[in-house]
């Protein structure tokens, strides 16, 4: 986690380039400039100010390259630029831009790229740590790892400031008024006499102006937008049915495709008979694609119906057929041979355990979980002779360029990706199978745009779920205190599963196996966290908070068992052990918010957990009642330290959403396999949380830290453990396996 700090503080440079008809202000540079993607299609009289601002006769466009999958990324990126540029969000256009290396996710990507190229391995554990803990991916335009705010907090404001100061220089030249006497407001430079020069009219005049460097960013006391409640740029559209998502997009002349994949994910197609399907109304063709068949029709529903009518013979899944075998593989992975990392080894666990007879031991399980964003995945692809176009919601536009380029046999740079709004992701759109399959169809009907929409059933049963994981703990308590905590975690490598699908090899340890566990802020005298690499089983992918999504539960649940054995209070003992001032403050905050004063009693219980993930310390207290009909979650209190809360409204919404996401799955959800086929394929068998189970949630953002951090993922890891702790306090039942509804009823 310390590495993130180092890299995010790297200085950014803004350069400039002259182009026909105007000027473009230099791309964001790390060591060397990347070509500015906006230059290619600039017309006369247009200028691009950094890759984040474009100004033409129509006005100002802010470029927001991090994908918006519902987390408000477009709004927050736009607000950071607008803060310094002095434009109002309702007077600018917002455009995610075209995929480009200029939109690398921080300097991290530059570092990572040195260690990771197709066919190359990563020999250096530190370099791999950078990848796996923050990005996992090479230097490309990736949205993930709760990095949108940390990545953009300085960079985007700086882009806005450079653009503003350059426009002021242009205004000064035009008017003869000294720059120091100029002000900027609402998309215009204001002269002392009240004259207003719009950015649009000034833009062409910046051609010969060197953009000023070393502009001091405004102090927090002068912020107009940051830290104040914002209205999301998409809130009206999303409340009136007028927001267009990928699934709503239309391209002239497009056909509708549906897919029927081997129900055993990634298994092969052996044979198929499309005779019946081809007779159905509106069906144009049925063709094989990797792992299944595709139906092309004139309407989504007709394509779905015809796909169901295709008779197919499938090969077996390339992983164990039953979920018991998956658990067996994890159970067998706690061996020296499969040890992946031991990033924490304080004191001497072995001696402590050998010396004492009082040993606490337990085993924990976290199941596979689908991401299941509500919008089924979809993509439109058109392939022409030398170029291709893709319209889809994605977190990985650069990978899509490469993969479509390969399928079409064209240069990836000639693949245009239009990033569309997403109806959720939770990590699902770090995969691009749907785009590759649409491209496989489109390459067989060149010039025709093919829109491939997954049915819910195909989507949920081929979701590339969250990792399955198991943990074993043992420990020692003495004199009412936790003295020794030894935690081992076994899971397959998410990073390997994901990256191998993109054609990369990734040797070395995978820090996600112990993320949310090895780096927790507790000074336990003898403390060890060991990661074990289980074999690759079902294909898996990053699920909101990745490794920490299972490990936040394991770590806190194990700690709770020790605290209970010591006869201590779960919050008091965490505070006593806490070794980090930021973490202490979040624990104190949830203690105060919940009025924590020990045991609740009367069939009620409270639990607490804290996880540091993505640099954020997030603590949660959950209160439950044990009713006649089952467990009722009464209240959740959350405190998280993020340095600066950029938008209090979105912060509150994301934290509550993260808690609900985590609890809904911890209570109700799992993906299991029979005959290599997922047993769950729709929301009847994979419920998440519904409104009747939703507790009241109270949120507090803390701003004591120096680093500005993202909040998309950190609320997820502590939730399940806090709930399990509360249920134990209320009922005496210790839950060690998710989903909890296998063992208790919820109301």
């Amino acid at each position, binding site marked *: 986690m310390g590495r993130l700090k180092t890299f995010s503080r790297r200085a950014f440079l803004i350069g400039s380039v002259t182009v026909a008809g105007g000027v473009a202000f230099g791309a964001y540079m790390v060591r060397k400039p990347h070509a500015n993607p906006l230059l290619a299609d600039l017309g006369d009289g247009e200028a691009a100010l950094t890759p984040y601002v474009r100004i033409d006769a129509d006005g100002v466009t802010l470029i927001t390259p991090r994908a918006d999958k519902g987390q408000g990324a477009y709004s927050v990126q736009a607000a950071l630029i607008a803060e310094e540029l002095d434009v109002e969000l309702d007077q600018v256009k917002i455009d995610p831009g075209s995929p480009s290396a200029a939109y690398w996710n921080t300097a991290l990507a530059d570092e990572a790229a040195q260690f990771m190229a197709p066919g190359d391995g990563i020999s250096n554990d530190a370099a791999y740590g950078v990848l796996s803990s923050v990005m996992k991916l090479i230097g490309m335009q990736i949205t993930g790892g709760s990095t949108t705010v940390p990545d953009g907090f300085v960079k985007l404001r700086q882009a806005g400031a450079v653009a503003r100061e350059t426009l002021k220089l242009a205004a000064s030249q035009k008017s003869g008024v000294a720059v120091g006497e100029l002000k900027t407001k609402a998309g215009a430079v204001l002269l002392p006499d009240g004259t207003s020069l719009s950015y649009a009219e000034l833009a062409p005049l910046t051609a010969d102006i060197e953009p000023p460097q070393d502009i001091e960013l405004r102090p927090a006391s002068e912020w107009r937008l940051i830290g104040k409640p914002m209205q999301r740029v998409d809130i009206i559209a999303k409340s009136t*049915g007028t927001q267009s998502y990928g699934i709503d997009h239309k391209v002239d002349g497009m056909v509708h495709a549906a897919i029927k994949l081997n129900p055993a994910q990634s298994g092969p197609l052996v044979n198929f008979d499309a005779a019946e399907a081809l007779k159905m109304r509106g069906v144009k063709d049925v063709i094989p694609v990797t792992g299944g068949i595709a139906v092309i029709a004139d309407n989504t529903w007709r394509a779905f119906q015809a796909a169901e009518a295709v008779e197919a013979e499938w090969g077996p899944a390339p992983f164990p057929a039953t979920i018991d075998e998956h658990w067996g593989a994890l159970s067998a992975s706690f061996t020296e041979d499969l040890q992946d990392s031991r990033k924490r080894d304080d004191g001497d666990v072995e001696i402590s355990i050998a010396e004492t007879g009082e040993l606490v031991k337990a085993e924990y399980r976290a199941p596979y979980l689908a991401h299941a964003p509500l919008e089924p995945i979809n993509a439109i692809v058109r392939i022409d002779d030398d170029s291709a176009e893709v319209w889809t919601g994605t977190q990985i536009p650069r990978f899509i360029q490469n993969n479509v380029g390969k399928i079409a046999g064209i240069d990836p740079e000639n693949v245009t990706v239009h990033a569309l709004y997403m109806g959720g992701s939770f990590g699902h759109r770090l995969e691009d199978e749907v785009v590759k399959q649409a491209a496989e169809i489109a390459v067989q009907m060149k010039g025709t745009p093919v829109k491939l929409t997954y049915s819910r059933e195909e989507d949920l049963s081929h979701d590339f779920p969250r990792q399955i994981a198991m943990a074993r703990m043992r420990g020692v308590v003495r004199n009412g205190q936790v003295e020794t905590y030894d935690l081992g975690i076994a899971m397959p490598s998410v990073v390997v599963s994901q990256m191998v699908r993109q054609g990369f090899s990734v040797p070395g340890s995978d820090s996600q196996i112990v993320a949310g566990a090895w780096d927790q802020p507790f000074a336990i005298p003898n403390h060890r966290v060991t990661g074990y690499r289980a074999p690759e089983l079902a294909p898996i992918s990053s699920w909101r908070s990745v490794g920490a999504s299972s490990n936040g539960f394991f770590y806190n649940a194990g700690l709770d068992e020790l605290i209970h054995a010591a006869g201590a209070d779960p919050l008091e003992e965490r505070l006593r052990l806490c070794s980090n001032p930021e973490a202490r403050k979040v624990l104190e905050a949830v203690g105060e918010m919940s009025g924590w004063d020990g045991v609740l009693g009367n069939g009620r219980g409270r639990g607490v957990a804290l996880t540091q993930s993505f640099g954020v310390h997030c603590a949660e207290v959950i209160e439950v009642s044990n009713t006649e009909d089952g467990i009722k979650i009464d209240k959740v209190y959350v405190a998280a330290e993020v340095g600066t809360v950029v938008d209090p409204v979105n912060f509150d919404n994301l934290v509550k*959403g993260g808690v609900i996401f985590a609890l809904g799955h911890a209570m109700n959800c799992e993906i299991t396999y029979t005959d290599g086929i997922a047993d769950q394929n729709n929301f009847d068998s994979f419920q998440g949380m519904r*409104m009747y189970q939703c507790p009241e949630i109270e949120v507090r953002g803390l701003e004591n830290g120096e680093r500005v951090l993202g909040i998309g993922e950190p609320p997820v890891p502590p939730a399940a453990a806090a709930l399990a702790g509360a249920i134990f306090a209320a009922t005496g039942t210790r839950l060690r396996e998710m989903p909890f509804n296998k063992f208790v009823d919820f109301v």
Partner: protein
Amino acid sequence: MRLTVDGKIHEVDVEPDMPLLWVLRDELGITGVKYGCGIAQCGACTVHIDGVATRSCQQWVGDVEGEVTTINGLGTPDALHAVQAAWIEHQVAQCGYCQSGQIMSAAALLAENPSPSDEDIDDAMSGNLCRCGTYPRIREALKSAATTLRSA
């Protein structure tokens, strides 16, 4: 066959067993109505038929009797329905994909029950899944819309 949607009459030539959802989306281009599950488990496709909240994915178009109202007809950005206005005021949406259905369920509830209790709200809204977890804001916005509508 003839279909009245958002006050407009449409002639459609489709199979009678095509779900209303797909007629609206693919044949009439009314895409505010969302596909989420196809089995009436998520509520994203909720529309009103003569004011009654209906899962359009389970409604054969040939069986539709009455006027269909979609999110696009409930109100518009320039002429918001009270529920939409409350959704904006409380900034309910994250990804927003479920919100068309949430708003249609909420509007139907309030038309029938102007002062719903927490339990009434849970009962009426639990068929609408939100994967982003916006339920606390949905509750607040729904109560706020109830107040607005009662005083209108």
